[in-house]
């Protein structure tokens, strides 16, 4: 071995090759040096610019959502500070440990824990996740105090929607909710993607919040920020702020006091009430019970609550005044009476009622066994005599009744801006043809059906809003159109000038007086609904609409009283009215689902609501004008 160790031949070979190696290294390193020259000197400006672009980003500043206020400026929807806690996963280190530490201060359920982990893995840990929101001040300040020991935790103050009246205005105002994929894909939001993707950003999901989303949302502001590679903001460049513009204020016609009074009157029932200012069409009350609390919905609806609300027979998710449809029952008799006068029947036309009416091959019963004796048109309303209207029906064409009904607001929807309005049904020959389009043998209109329609049964249905409009139109003789938004931003909707209905006052006076008699004359069906204050006069009409026909077999078993029926089979109770009788200003409808009797259940509630209306008399008070709400207190609300 030693023999070879200093073999000169080997040494020489290595020297030659080493020279080549040294040369090779020199060349390659020179190549790297040249590359450095290219990057750092030749293309310096390009990379300098790219480095700048890397650093700066535009951050969206979410606008404050416009407020919604009642006719006197009382807040129905506003923005409230929301104390929440975010977690920056990449700062937290061990996520489990971080969540465990935070869990000592706020409750993190197993469910939520799993959801957070999923979210973190989805964003690969680079985006903040919301651990909890709507913290109370105590918890929030405690977390802030403990912050040094909570890796990755970022307390934050943001804005959240607040509905001070809770469930009382749930169906008017609606609620906001998290942005969905459908919102993001909507062409309307094409240019708002960044704003919509802000963590915690909410959009209107129902009610006016949804309809006026564009107006309420406001315009996002922006600010240049310095970001790191993960897009995390590390510095705000304050002098580049372009401030956001708050959404427009929505001024409603609703009177919060009266709305609350109506909710109270209806409490415990599955019911609705509508009050309309007859002169302006302003909807003062739009009450629906039971209702949900939109404040809970805004935070994300818990599954079990959603299931409970959805399966409840009282339908707390249904906006009953607009979307609930009921056979109007006897409240429809004004329409029939007016139709009869249009057909030439004199108000003095009398019918003798003995409790039943033979038509075709069967008896049609009056609600009163034994009958009302001889009644004229006015008294037929006062007593709500079915026989009188059966008699009229035999002489009337259903198409004329339907035409009258439409003049008074039935079978149509109004431009309120609240989604979910139902048009109800006013049947006529044409309707029946369309309804039975698939089976021509059923398309013929039978005269017997007109009898049902005449007393507001059969296929007739209407919403409580339509019934209130009907009462308003009867009272005023004008095509009163309900509205609920008085102004948005600085833009005041003009007070609508209602056109007169082409009917004579004499004809309308007959039904007006009939309605007056219902409440104020002895023997009227709703005398107990007369105002306690005798100076005020209410005119109204009861309605009891059949939901379930008691079978002969049941009658034979002794089941005659509606109280014996299960709740869902009891009759609906309705009441429509207006006041004061001499110079009508307010019209009202009340529908109590399965309330058994209009006089018993709906009338007294209408009285309670209308007493509150008459006491406050909101039409005499000056409503809030647009722009009167100072924008100045915005700073305090922003915090």
């Amino acid at each position, binding site marked *: *071995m030693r023999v070879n160790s200093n073999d000169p031949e080997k*040494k020489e*070979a290595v020297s030659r090759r080493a020279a080549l190696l040294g040369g090779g290294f020199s060349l390659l390193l020179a190549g790297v040096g040249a590359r*450095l020259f290219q990057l*750092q*000197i030749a293309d310096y400006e390009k990379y300098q610019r790219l*480095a700048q672009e*890397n650093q700066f980003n535009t951050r969206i500043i979410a606008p404050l959502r416009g407020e919604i206020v009642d006719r006197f400026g009382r807040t129905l929807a506003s923005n409230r500070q929301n104390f929440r806690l975010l977690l920056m996963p990449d700062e937290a280190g061990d996520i489990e440990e971080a969540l465990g530490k935070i869990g000592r201060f706020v409750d993190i359920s197993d469910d939520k824990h799993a959801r957070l982990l999923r979210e973190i893995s989805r964003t690969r840990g680079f985006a903040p996740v919301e651990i909890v929101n709507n913290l109370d001040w105590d918890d929030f300040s405690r977390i802030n105090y403990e912050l040094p020991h909570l890796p990755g935790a970022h307390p934050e103050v943001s804005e959240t929607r607040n509905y001070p009246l809770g469930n009382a205005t749930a169906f008017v105002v609606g609620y906001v909710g998290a942005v969905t994929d459908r919102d993001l894909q909507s062409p309307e939001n094409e240019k708002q993607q960044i704003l919509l993707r802000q963590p915690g950003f909410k959009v209107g999901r129902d009610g006016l919040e949804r309809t006026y989303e564009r107006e309420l949302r406001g315009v996002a502001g922006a600010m240049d920020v310095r970001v790191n*590679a993960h897009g995390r903001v590390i510095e705000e460049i304050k002098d580049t702020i372009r401030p956001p513009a708050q959404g427009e204020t929505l001024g409603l016609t609703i009177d919060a006091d009266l709305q609350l009074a109506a909710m109270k009157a209806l409490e415990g029932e599955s019911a609705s009430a509508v009050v309309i200012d007859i002169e302006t069409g302003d909807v003062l009350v739009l009450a629906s019970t039971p209702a949900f609390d939109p404040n809970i919905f805004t935070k994300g609806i818990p599954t079990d609550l959603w299931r409970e609300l959805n399966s409840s027979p009282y339908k707390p998710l249904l906006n009953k005044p607009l979307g609930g449809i009921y056979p109007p029952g006897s409240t429809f008799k004004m329409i029939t009476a007016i139709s009869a006068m249009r057909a030439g029947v004199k108000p003095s036309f009398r019918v003798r009622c003995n409790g039943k009416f033979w038509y075709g091959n069967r008896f049609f019963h009056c609600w009163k066994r034994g009958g009302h004796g001889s009644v004229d048109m006015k008294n037929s309303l006062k007593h709500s005599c079915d026989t009188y209207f059966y008699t009229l029906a035999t002489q009337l064409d259903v198409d004329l009744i339907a035409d009258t009904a439409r003049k008074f607001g039935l079978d149509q929807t109004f431009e309120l801006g609240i989604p979910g309005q139902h048009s109800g049904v006013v049947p006529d020959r044409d309707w029946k043809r369309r309804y039975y389009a698939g089976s021509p043998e059923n398309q013929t209109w039978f005269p017997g059906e007109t009898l049902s329609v005449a007393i507001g049964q059969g296929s007739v249905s209407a919403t409580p809003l339509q019934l209130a409009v009907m009462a308003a139109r009867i009272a005023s003789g004008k095509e009163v159109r309900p509205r609920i938004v008085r102004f948005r931003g600085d833009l005041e909707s003009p007070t609508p000038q209602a056109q007169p209905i082409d009917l004579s006052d004499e004809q309308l006076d007959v039904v007006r007086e009939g309605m007056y008699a219902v409440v104020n004359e002895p023997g009227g069906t709703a005398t107990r609904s007369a105002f306690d204050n005798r100076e005020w006069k209410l005119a109204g009409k009861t309605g009891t609409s059949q939901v379930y026909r008691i079978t002969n077999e049941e009658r034979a078993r002794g089941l005659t009283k509606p109280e014996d029926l299960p709740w869902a089979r009891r009759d609906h109770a309705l009441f429509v009215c207006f006041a004061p009788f001499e110079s009508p200003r307010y019209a009202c409808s009340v529908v109590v689902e399965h309330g058994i009797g209009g006089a018993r259940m709906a009338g007294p509630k209408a009285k309670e609501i209308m007493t509150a209306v008459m006491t406050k008399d909101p039409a005499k008070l000056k409503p809030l004008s647009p722009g009167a709400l100072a924008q100045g207190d915005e700073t305090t609300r922003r915090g």
Partner: protein
Amino acid sequence: MASIILPGPRRGVQDQLGRLHWPLIIMLSLIAGAGVATLYSVGGGSWTPWAGTHAFRFAVSLIVMIVIGLISIRYWLALAYPIYFVALIALALVPLIGEVNMGAQRWIEIGPMQFQPSEMMKIGIVLALARYYHGIRAEQVSHILYLVPPLLMIGAPVGLVFLQPDLGTAIMIGATGSAIMVLAGLSWRLIFLGVVAAIGGAIAAFRFGVLHDYQLKRIFTFLDPDSDPLGAGYHLMQSKIGLGSGGLVGKGYMMGTQRELNFLPEMQTDFIFTIFGEEFGFVGAFGLLLLYFAVIMTGMNIALRARSHFARLAALGICVTFGLYVLINAGMVTGLAPVVGVPLPLVSYGGTVMLTIMAGFGIVMSAHLSRDPDGASL
């Protein structure tokens, strides 16, 4: 012990220390100093978590280097094969007891220490091949039978490292081994055949999917980095932005925005040259390259003046390894080579690589101390 450290009874330790190649030590320290400074910046102006440890590790490694250097090259000749085989066995054990990290299995834990056998093999392959060519005659180098042992010596570790999988290290071990064969005087005909075989092997690797997806992706992105700015080419693009925006003199120490804003991954290891170049500009980056070049030239100079064939080849082999580290890393962060995860020696954070490099220069130092005529009796 004394007899191991001292080549002969003629010199004392102090004398030996005086004969150390101090310029080499100073240059290595300068490079490591650049590493500490950059890691301090990467740590956001803090000794933790990197800069302090790096400085400490360098101090320890420097002592290891000097100790290795003081040991006579004769002993390293004797230990060459044992070191190689220990490294080979450790490599073979990795799949059985190793830690899986980022889809690759490279580490073995020994008590509290983590240890990368592939790094030890970088020295092992150099020593073993130098030992091998030390023992054969010049005319045997290109003889077909004498080709088999070195090819096996290279092939076994390359195969094992490739399976981990660690493409970068496999290439480095293969390239270092091949370089030593060439340096030993392999005929040009065989060199040509070897190059053809290597290219064929590379093509086969692509064809038959021996490469992992991420390896392929890195290679493809290397070919067109701007095509995929947020995918695999993102890091390379950001690295180029970092270097390029450094300009002539850099943004200033601790002023790098790409660093500050975390646009680069693995700033403390693979992309540290970018940070250095961003903060110190072309002047700094090119200066650092020159320093590396000077180290390599010094090492080669020592090698060529060594008296034994083993010392010569071993020292050259270390220079090749060191040079490959620098070229691959610098090439990678400037977009000249694929991102294969090779650190910049002595600057990148990482204990095993630091120790490997310094141990290697210990061998170079040993060759240096064994050079003079008195010690020629090796």
